[in-house]
């Protein structure tokens, strides 16, 4: 026969068990914080993400940590202002909470904000334009003018001649123009003769490189964008050894470009910390959605490197980020 004291103990034991069950397995006592998932759309100015590989890695990391659902969108035609505008409006209509845009033309986007057609928070990538309207806008990116100056200084240091061929695409994007201005800012006052060559795309750019080398053996070439640099490097690596180039320089962080640098086809390469750009842009977007203080990031890290720097620990972290 159970005593009264034992009965009370058993009842208490039962109550404790029930309480523990309610605490651990249900939402009744401790309310679980509901995780808010924010839809964020990233729209770039290009048709492929070839130059955004590390950016995407950073973006994916931030998406996992900050519970964001990030869509990465490319254009149907490179540099199409109308397509980018359509995609921005489509994403807004489909309910994205913030936009990260590498603008074809930042003025178009500000105009959309002014006209109240664009109302979601916006993070602009690699744009120096300043918003005129009252839309919520933040900026993040790299100082391409300074990067151009650094590359100009490297060319001046490494090359004997005073002639430089600048290779780029027809209708260059604003980033390439800033990069070019930086190079010219250093080399023109030094008396360099600068010759411009351009092409529409792959074969056109390769033909331009062949023509440069026919005009001048040991020519020094600076490519304004990663595509032009890749085409130039490919062309040089396929040519006979007697077509030697004096030096090939440019910017970009793709694996192909790094391989060309490692093989000595490229002499100087300006690299950027794209992983941080991807991570921070998503974080800024989430902060803006949550109306939190958005940290200002001025310009992110970039550096001009040569072959010997490729296996430097500092640059390896930038170029091959651990996801």
């Amino acid at each position: 026969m159970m005593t009264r004291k034992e009965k009370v103990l058993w009842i208490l034991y039962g109550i404790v068990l029930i309480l523990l069950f309610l605490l651990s397995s249900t939402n009744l006592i401790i309310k679980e914080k509901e995780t808010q998932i924010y839809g964020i759309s990233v729209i770039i100015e290009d048709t492929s993400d070839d130059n955004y590989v590390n950016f995407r890695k950073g973006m994916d990391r931030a998406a996992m940590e900050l519970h964001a659902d990030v869509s990465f969108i490319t254009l149907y035609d490179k540099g199409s202002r109308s397509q980018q505008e359509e995609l921005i409006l489509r994403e807004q209509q489909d309910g994205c909470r913030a936009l990260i845009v590498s603008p074809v033309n930042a003025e178009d986007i500000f105009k959309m904000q002014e006209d109240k057609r664009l109302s979601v928070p916006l993070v602009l990538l690699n744009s120096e334009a300043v918003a005129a309207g009252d839309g919520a806008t933040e900026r993040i990116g790299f100082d391409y003018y300074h990067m151009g100056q650094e590359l100009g200084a490297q060319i001046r240091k490494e090359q004997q001649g005073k002639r430089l061929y600048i290779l780029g695409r027809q209708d260059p994007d604003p980033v390439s123009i800033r990069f070019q201005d930086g190079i010219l800012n250093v080399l023109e006052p030094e008396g360099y003769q600068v010759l411009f060559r351009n092409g529409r795309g792959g074969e056109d750019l390769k033909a331009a490189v062949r023509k440069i080398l026919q005009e001048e053996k040991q020519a020094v070439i600076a490519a304004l964008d990663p595509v032009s640099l890749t085409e130039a490097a490919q062309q040089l690596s396929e040519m006979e050894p007697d077509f030697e180039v004096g030096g090939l320089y440019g910017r970009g962080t793709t694996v192909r470009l790094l391989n060309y640098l490692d093989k000595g086809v490229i002499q100087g390469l300006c690299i950027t910390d794209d992983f941080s750009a991807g991570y921070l842009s998503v974080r800024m977007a989430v902060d803006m959605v949550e109306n939190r203080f958005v940290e200002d990031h001025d310009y992110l890290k970039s550096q001009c490197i040569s072959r010997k720097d490729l296996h430097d620990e500092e640059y390896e972290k930038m170029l091959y980020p651990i996801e």
Partner: protein
Amino acid sequence: MKRKSKITIWLLAGLCGLLLLTGCDSKEKEGEKKMLRIGVSLYRGDDTFINNIRGELENCAKEYEKEHGVKVTLDIQDAKGSQNTQNNQVERFISLGCDVLCINPVDRTAASAMIEKVMTAEIPVVFFNRQPVEEDMDRWDQLYYVGVVARESAVLQGSIVVDRYREDPKSLDRNGDGVVSYVLLEGESSHQDSLIRTEWSIQTLKDGGVPIEKITGGIANWERSQASALMEQWLEQYPDTIELVVCNNDDMALGAIDAIERAKASGISLVGIDATTPGLEAVRSGKLMGTVSSDKEQYAGAIFTIAAAAAQKEPVPEELSLEEGKYYWSRQEIIVK
């Protein structure tokens, strides 16, 4: 009587409600979805062939958007060679509400866990490049596979060498001893294509009358860096002996080329498979004797078309003739300079 009519009214109201609900449901099912979300998981994003397919998939998505006016969101994730990571990615795709998944399995023998999850969530899957075992594929009628016939790739690769030998035996038998001495770079041992490619490539050489002698071989797991390390070692061990390098894919062939260039060796011919962008560059520049192209546009096109049809709950278009209603084999061709 009063009670009876009340019951009748309630029953009628219930029936109307039910009809209304099912009506709404069927209306949604009949109409084409205006937005497709496709989850894509790659076994390793740095594999050049897989990366080429990924690029083509993105192009297909854009084409589909333009053609059908349906927004397509491609959620592409890299499993980095970890089946565990891929399982988590599949869970994430399901929780994000993907309409269909395209999976390039890390371990083709471990697809059952993923299949279990997608079957529960009723999300169709198009597997590609690494074929899950038959028992897994047979578990559900909404599982598809897109790939190439490994034996065909190997026979085509072998015939590149046979043709060259018939044209000019000395171009392969450099030392003139009447035998072509070769080394072999193989893919992962767990991949169904590795063994088949090796076996049939060599068999084609024998059948084609090329006198061959194997010096050595090794597994480089489809990777350029591993192939480069192996080749470097073999060039030291067997100087001036290797005349031909048979590689299970282009990345490994490029790794072998890297080692040959570093060692400043010459007179070695190489053949690959896949026709990746850098592989084609190497063929154009003469560093690679030839490769086998699996028509990536058609390959990715098949993956996307099947995925879109499955997501829209439509039958797969007839022009894609599926073997057993689930397997699609992409065509292949030889690429030489």
